[in-house]
């Protein structure tokens, strides 16, 4: 699993889950600590809102806890958690019929928060430039069809390979490639339209 570095002494996710099923609270804590940043990050990318992402990630962890005794060690646990998180976030979006999701921004307040530089960069111009790029990305990704948007987020921002994206979304690698390809074509068209608009 990329980005989750385990040393030789670390227990695997499945081992931790097994101990969780036996009632060892500390094992579950380790599992949460190991994956919370990436899981919350994924939810935030999909939902566009930090607080909602924390809620969503919490529910995914609670589901993992609830399933600790019944999940079979098959593949990577984190892939399963990613799948649950992705489906959960998409369901949330569909449930609230989030038109604003086209811009990945549930409300103006959330948008402002999500675009706030984390490190409070002292350089005002650099900050403004960063915000401009982020906004452009949000708008471009938000204009994509949902199926392409999810693949793009998983590939570009989560850095996942086609195989894993396919496992998460329950589609073939070929379908992942096709969706990513079409997403990039959409973005190309959007960028060309934007540059035409600027040049006029």
């Amino acid at each position: 699993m990329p980005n989750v570095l385990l040393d030789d002494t670390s227990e695997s996710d499945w081992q931790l889950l097994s101990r969780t099923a036996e009632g060892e609270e500390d094992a579950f804590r380790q599992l949460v600590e190991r994956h919370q940043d990436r899981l919350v990050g994924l939810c935030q990318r999909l939902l566009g809102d930090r607080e909602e992402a924390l809620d969503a990630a919490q529910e995914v962890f609670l589901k993992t806890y609830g399933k600790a005794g019944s999940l079979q060690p098959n593949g990577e646990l984190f892939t399963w958690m990613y799948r649950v998180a992705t489906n959960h976030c998409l369901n949330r979006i569909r449930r609230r019929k989030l038109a604003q999701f086209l811009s990945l921004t549930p409300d103006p307040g959330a948008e402002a928060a999500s675009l706030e530089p984390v490190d409070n960069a002292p350089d005002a111009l650099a900050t403004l430039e960063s915000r401009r790029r982020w906004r452009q990305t949000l708008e471009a990704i938000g204009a994509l069809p949902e199926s392409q948007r999810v693949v793009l987020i998983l590939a570009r921002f989560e850095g996942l390979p086609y195989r894993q994206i396919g496992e998460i979304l329950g589609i073939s690698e070929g379908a992942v490639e096709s969706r990513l390809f079409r997403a990039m074509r959409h973005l190309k068209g959007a960028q060309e339209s934007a540059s035409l608009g600027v040049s006029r």
Partner: protein
Amino acid sequence: MDRKTEQQLLRLLVGELSDEAAQNLRLRLENESELQHAFTVLQERWQTLELPPLETVHPSFTSRVVRQAVTGPSFEAAGLGRSSPLWARATAAVALAGGILVGVLLASPSDTDEWAGWSAIEQTQAEVYWETLSASSDNLVREDLR
């Protein structure tokens, strides 16, 4: 440029090509300016996709999740669990139907005589109405004949 080549470029960009295929494509990139240009554009488009860096999750989140899992409501209550089993849903449906039936029975007059009395009154009132109506019709016909 055909779609297959574009897909190859995208595969190269995201690291999905095998070593051999990647090496072959890189050789082509060195020799074909159009291909090189297309790859550069694709790279730029990919890299301009930027989102704000993500914050590290606060340790209180971990504690909250663990506490919720161990002591709080079950994950089923969080709306993520499986839907209730068939037997539970069937029991709930029967209970609901039973409740409705009890409600209907309680709301209905229990004494059949009393109900018959109400029916009789209603019948009488209807009869009075029709009589009044036919009487007034007769009067109108008589006035017309005059």
